[in-house]
């Protein structure tokens, strides 16, 4: 494999999948008589692929069969559930012993817990290539750090502040980039967006945690997170760019949906109804932009967010316009007809994106 040194696990898995698909297709083509390899050619090709697969397996423990792929998916789900359960166990256990431990002991325990989980994750990562157990321990470390900050605030009777969001974000992102963990990348990105929005909100004398009441404060931080997907440090990070776009564009889409229905939440000095109309138009434009951009760049998640936003905005407008006076069967028939029309548009887009062989 020419560039094997620089590949990520996702890229290695994609290569292994391509080899498997190639072998299946070659066998089908040979049985149809479309192609016939000589024994030498076949042996050379098989040896090349076997060596490549052995190398990828040794380095990344890639899935070499469909059954392995399904089991890997199951492992990821179980790893996530395990991390959540272990974090809950750590929090509840601490609550159970809290009353018996003096303040200094409480602080020492919650300070040491994330460091211990981080150390365990680091040790585990040396012993496994798939990082399922490492991911579990990394999420546990993040949960312990959240508990740490919460307990410190309680012990000191501290006033509420957005600063915990900043340190949680920094911790989650550092661990996510250390092991290419997408779940912690999402956690870090969401905390970073919330922190920036919270700080913006405090400039208006509002309590920091009311940023969801003024959701416009989320727009710029969310756009900034989406923009980092094309940053050079994410270029060799597998699915990180798609994840960052999903978080950034998704939060902008949710904000637009909220403001298109609740104009009072806006900071614009305009009547609420006018604001709602502005965001309705802006929402449709944004959805089309995401679809077009996603199709052109091959960003599947961006296209999907755009399509979902377009459909949701259209449904909400239909409710606004027709729900009160239209017979219900006619309302849903209209929604169905609109969905069909939207499907035709998307199908046309799909054909135009298929290339010259279609």
């Amino acid at each position, binding site marked *: 494999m020419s560039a094997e040194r620089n590949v990520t696990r996702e890229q290695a898995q994609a290569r292994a999948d391509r080899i498997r698909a190639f072998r299946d297709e070659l066998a089908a083509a040979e049985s149809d008589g479309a192609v016939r390899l000589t024994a030498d050619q076949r042996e050379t090709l098989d040896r090349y692929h076997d060596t490549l697969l052995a190398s990828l397996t040794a380095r990344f423990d890639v899935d070499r069969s469909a059954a392995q792929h399904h089991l890997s998916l199951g492992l990821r789900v179980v790893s996530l559930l395990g991390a959540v359960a272990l974090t809950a166990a750590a929090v*509840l256990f601490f*609550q*159970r*012993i*809290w*009353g*018996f*431990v*003096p*303040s200094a002991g409480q*602080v020492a325990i919650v*300070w040491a817990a*994330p*460091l211990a989980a*981080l150390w365990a994750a*680091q040790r585990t990562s040396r012993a496994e290539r798939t990082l399922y157990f490492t991911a579990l321990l990394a999420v546990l*470390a993040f949960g312990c*750090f959240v508990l*740490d*900050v919460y307990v*410190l*605030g*309680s*012990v*000191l*009777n*501290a*006033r*509420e502040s957005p600063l915990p969001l900043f*340190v949680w974000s*920094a*911790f989650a992102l*550092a*661990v996510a*980039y*250390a*092991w290419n963990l997408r779940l912690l990348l999402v956690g870090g990105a969401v905390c970073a967006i919330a922190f920036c929005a919270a700080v913006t909100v*405090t400039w*208006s*004398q*509002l*309590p920091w945690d*009311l940023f969801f*009441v*003024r959701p416009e404060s989320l727009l710029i931080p969310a756009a900034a997170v989406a923009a980092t997907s094309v940053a050079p440090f994410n270029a060799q990070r597998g699915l990180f760019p798609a994840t960052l776009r999903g978080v950034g564009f998704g939060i902008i889409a949710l904000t637009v949906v909220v403001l298109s229905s*609740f104009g*009072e*939440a806006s900071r614009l*000095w305009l*009547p*609420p*109804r006018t604001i709602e109309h502005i965001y309705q138009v802006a929402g449709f434009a944004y959805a089309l932009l995401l679809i077009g951009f996603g199709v052109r760049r091959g960003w599947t998640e961006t296209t999907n967010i755009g399509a979902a936003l377009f459909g949701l905005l259209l449904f909400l407008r239909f409710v606004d316009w027709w729900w009160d006076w239209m017979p219900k069967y006619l309302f849903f028939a209209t929604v169905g007809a609109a969905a069909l029309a939207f499907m035709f548009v998307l199908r046309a887009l799909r054909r135009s994106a298929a290339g010259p062989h279609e």
Partner: protein
Amino acid sequence: MKRLLLGAAAIVCLTNLGALTLGALNRTGPEDAEVTLTERELRLVHDSDSTATTLRMMFVQRFDEAEWLTCPKLATLGVSCAPPPGSDMARWYARQPERQAYVVLEDDGPAWQSYRQAEIRRQEEARRTYKSAAPDNVESLLDGYSRLVAIDADSDAAVLRSRYPDRHRYLIVDARVSIYGRVGPDGNGRTRLSGTITRLSPQTINVPKPYSSVFASMEGSTYAPSAERAPRYWVTLRYGRFHEPWIVNAGRTQ
């Protein structure tokens, strides 16, 4: 990778050190206030999943003729009582966000006496009007009420402290205020607008060892306000330079 993990560990250590330093700074230097409160003002919080001892601060806010958190005061806190032209009034008021402010809580002072007298007077009038509708033991009930009464608010804590210099009677607490429309006309046929303190920050106070032993046998019991049932404990609370409290003494009442 190693550098990132060291960075993550450094974030944990710096966060803990930073928080502890801020906590120490709050508690050093001259305190902002020190008061001794009882079970009336600091209620024990019960949580079956936790062995931690925490107290919830209770206070009285007046919505009667002595109400002070009205539109002119709300305006100084950044809350407007005038919706933008053309907006749906009910929707606008319902969606007005809370605001951050400092609130003065007076401990067992003239404001409490005034509130107590007004309540007794109101209950006597109700008893005369509705015969048996009002309770007979109103004074007994009032004895169980918190004697911390909210009397003023401002966005600047220093301004409030200069107005209320007695540090053993007046607490200055970080809080949130919001606006709401009260049912009934204001005398001019309009819905009356009012302010309310929605919560204090912090609202609950952690009880560390050894003071938590004072509350040990009280777990599982609840406090019912009455003259026959005197407060079971007292707590001396000190507020530091960042208006964050901590317990400096606690004991059982005899």
